[in-house]
């Protein structure tokens, strides 16, 4: 395993929810990343955000890691859940919340 995939593996193993995105949750630099941040915020999920724009190695490495060509990418309990389209679809269908709950992710009380 290359160094960069080890870093990714370590991140997704040690954090329940990890979002690889462009920019930061406060200052997203892309509409797709922003949309996923909004959904996670709405569900009151705490997550680790990794800004791929400040780390070219991760920006390329994450695409190979998941065989997925675009950013953002959401990982829950070490599992790749999808990009913005899939996260949006799961959220719209009310599926995302129960998915997180069945994976044992704690949502903060409203």
């Amino acid at each position, binding site marked *: 395993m290359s160094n960069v995939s080890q870093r990714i593996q370590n991140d997704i193993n040690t954090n329940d929810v990890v979002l690889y995105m462009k920019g930061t949750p406060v200052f997203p630099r892309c509409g797709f990343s922003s949309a996923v941040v909004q959904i996670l915020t709405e569900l009151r999920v705490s997550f680790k955000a990794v800004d791929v724009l400040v780390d070219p190695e991760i920006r390329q490495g994450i695409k190979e890691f998941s065989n997925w060509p675009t950013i953002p990418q959401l990982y829950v309990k070490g599992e790749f859940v999808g990009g913005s*389209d*899939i996260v949006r679809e799961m959220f719209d269908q009310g599926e995302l919340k129960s998915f997180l709950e069945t994976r044992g992710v704690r949502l903060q009380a409203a």
Partner: protein
Amino acid sequence: MAMSVGEIERLIREAIPDAEVTIKDMAGDGDHYAAMVVSSAFKGKTRVQQHQMVYDALKGRMGGQLHALSLQTAAKK
């Protein structure tokens, strides 16, 4: 840089022959598309796998030449 609707459709059908492809040009700029792809080849596959099949069909253009393609997939009933 941008790709035409016809080109995107052609690539998807080439890889997934029975695919019903509906593409909308969201911004009218030839660069922001939304596509709905329905195929029997998606049966029994997760959403991630279905999207990966479409990305594979686009042969590396997704995320590069094609910046914004919102994708929705479904298995043909």
